[in-house]
């Protein structure tokens, strides 16, 4: 019997972006309101899982040609890089810096190196979750 997941797939296409936006919001808001890299990462992974449910693994791999283990590695690199970068400025490991920076297009911005660290966490969480789900799901 041929099944038709049209409603699910259409709904997914719309809901996906809402979830992704929400996760990005949660990630960036983390320093001021509840959220952060961990929950943000889990939510993004949730969005991709929704894609996996609605479509099949090959299609998702075509849409998002990402190696999630590389992603984990990159995330760890971000986190450790931020932490170790502090050493270049003669301050202890994992000392963060923040301040207002004037950028060409965006103008006055409040930036914080903790965000880069959190981005590392975000990438690791997405990478780890997706690796686990894909590995188990792809197992025969």
């Amino acid at each position, binding site marked *: 019997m041929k099944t038709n997941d049209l409603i699910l797939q259409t709904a997914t296409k719309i809901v996906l972006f809402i979830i992704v936006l929400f996760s990005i919001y949660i990630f960036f808001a983390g320093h001021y309101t509840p959220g952060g890299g961990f929950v943000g990462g*889990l939510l993004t992974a949730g969005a991709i899982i929704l894609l996996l449910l609605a479509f099949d693994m090959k299609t998702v791999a075509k849409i998002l040609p990402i190696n999630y*283990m590389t992603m984990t590695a990159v995330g760890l690199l971000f986190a450790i890089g931020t*932490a170790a970068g502090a050493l270049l400025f003669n301050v202890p490991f994992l000392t963060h810096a923040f301040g207002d920076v004037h950028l060409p297009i965006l103008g006055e911005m409040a930036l914080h190196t903790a965000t880069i660290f959190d981005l590392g966490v975000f990438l*690791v969480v997405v990478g780890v979750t997706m*690796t686990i789900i894909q590995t188990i799901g792809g197992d025969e």
Partner: protein
Amino acid sequence: MSLLHLAIISPFLLAVLVPILYKLFRKVHTGWFILPLPLVLFVYFVSFVSATSTSQPIIESFTWIEALGIEFTAKIDGLGLLFALLITGIGTLVILYSIYYLSKDKEKLNTFYVYLLLFMGAMLGVVLSDNLIVLYAFWELTSFSSFLLIGYWYDREKSRYGAQKSMLITVFGGLSMFGGIILLYIMTGTFSITEIIAQSDVIFTHPLFVPALLCILLGAFTKSAQFPFHIWLPDAMEAPTPVSAYLHSATMVKAGIYLVARMSPVFADHALWLWLIAGFGIVTLFWGSFSAVKQTDLKAILAFSTISQLGMIMSLLGIGAAALHFDGIDDKYHTIATTAAVFHLINHATFKGSLFMVVGIVDHETGTRDIRRLGGLMQLMPITFTLAIIGSFSMAGLPPFNGFLSKEMFFTAMTHIIDFNVFQLDTWGILFPVIAWIASVFTFIYSMILVFKTFTGKLQPEKLEKKPHEAPIGMLISPIILASLVIIIGFFPNILSVNIIEPALSAIMPEFLFEVHISFWHGFNLELWMTIGVIVLGTLLYLSLAKWRKIYGLFPEKLALNKAYDHGLLFAQNGSLKMTKMYMNGSIRSYLIYIFAFFIAILSSVLFSQNAFKIDLEHAADVRYYEVLLVAVIVIASVAILFVKSRLTSVILLGTVGYTVALFFVNFRAPDLALTQLVIETISVSLFLLCFYHLPKKRNEERMAFKATNLVISIGVGAVVTLIALSAHSTKLFESISQYYVENTYTEAAGKNMVNVILVDFRGFDTLFEIVVLAIASIGIYAMIKLRMKGAK
């Protein structure tokens, strides 16, 4: 490092070269390269003779471990020199003998000489070290090299058994001796024997004195094969005969004697020392000679004979200790025991060494050592027969050989024991001469068996593996030299007394001045009549041996010490196996029970023994109704998990618990935790579902079986944790540091979400490694699933 140190370690240095020499010069017997070393060492040690007999001991020091006060102090005094001369002298003869005894084509000579040199160096180290730690190190090295030598023919099971047995027993003693050394160090603060002797008056009343004495004696008794630790020596006879001659008659077994003599100035004031050494010595003397008569293997006879003679020397050293309690009266009889001990030590080394070599020759030329198959070799092997006569008659204590003189002195010491009125020697002391005399009768019998059963009677060529003939001259040189010494010392006993025996005695008993004069003929006295009695009764018993031999059958084999040892070993082995099997049963449930039971026991006992348990509700917050509601939900869900039958239901109930926990986080104002908990719970529940989907179909879904232990343990764990939580909550020792975070989150870290700021900024280090943990988990799962071996289950 002085020349003396070099002399001690020179065997080790040569041992390094042996394999090279063996490989390079295959045509020459490796023993020829070894032979010069002990000879040179012997000559070198002889050069000390005049020095030690007149002046102070020679001491050379070499720092080893400065921080621990361990110095390799080499000290040559009379006692050390006597042993050093025995080791190198007999070492030379044994190596010469082994050159002819061991075939250069069939045997692995490189290992043999490496072990032998190792032993020689270790033995020299034992007798010439003044530092107890160094002495102990060399002591264990002698045990170790002896182990290697006994197991030289390692493809024979009996060799391995004997090697293991001797290792276990001597190392057991060695370790207890190490304990004794440490106790001595605690008492005196030094490892130097000289300094410990200087403090012997002080430590006499120390509470650790007796334990130290017992520990040291245990070491000496095991090494010198004293009753009941003698059982390793007969089994050590599986070693090649040169090894038996060297280690198990002349040198290593005398290490215990050396230790007792060396430590005499420290301990000999104590009654325990006298009674233990003299008592165990005399029992060993009797038991060794009694057991020797029943043996049928020549080497076994010699092994028990060695045990018996060692017991005799030991008991003499013990009796000699009584001399320290006398002042004035008549020193002659008090020190004669020690003199006899040292004199017999020398004599025993000479005749026992030659007897072992004789037995080796008989074994080598006939192919057997069993006296039931031997006989009538007198005409075929006249020189060997002569040597055997000299050795055995000396061992039996017959004139004109040296054994006669030391036996007479032994009787003198034993018969005068009742004169001592210390330590109840005047009452119980009468036992000593009686046992000594009976033991001497047995000594006479086995000495006669050794000679006459082997060399006289009828030749039984059909029972022998080879056609017997006289040994090559090279093999005979060493026993001839030793036998000549037996006779020379027998006729001229005083050639050694001034230069060797007197310095040795003054090392054992520094308080006395010795003038040793051993006269060959001392008139018709009690000792001579005792010897005549030994000869008469011994001859009668030897001739009627067949009639009374049955008494050995009366003694049940089951009660023999060997059986006890074997059973003990087996018991230890099986017992530990059983015990391990009992608790290491492979079931994770049991291990969890141990862990949790331990957890409960330790924590609850600490909680109550330290009076740490208290409940203080002062800091407790008010309970609100939705908290009660959530607790009810979580309790119901948790309890239900225990009783539901279907796995699916338990997974869903577990999810319920998880989501309720998330609600708790909401309730207790932890939005970050609530968010994370919700998502994580969702993922883990789906993973659970995935797992259960893949479980084998045929398994019936059953409710978890009830087990009372589980109930008790789980209730115990819950109660303990609750009690600890309550107590911890009731005890606030200091203010929380959270105020710092509240104040500085924005000013220092430019954030308003305190949880996140702590996670990435204040304590970002933890987060760093938590994401590493996650990464490892994902790689682990990937590896488990993707990298399965093809075809593996």
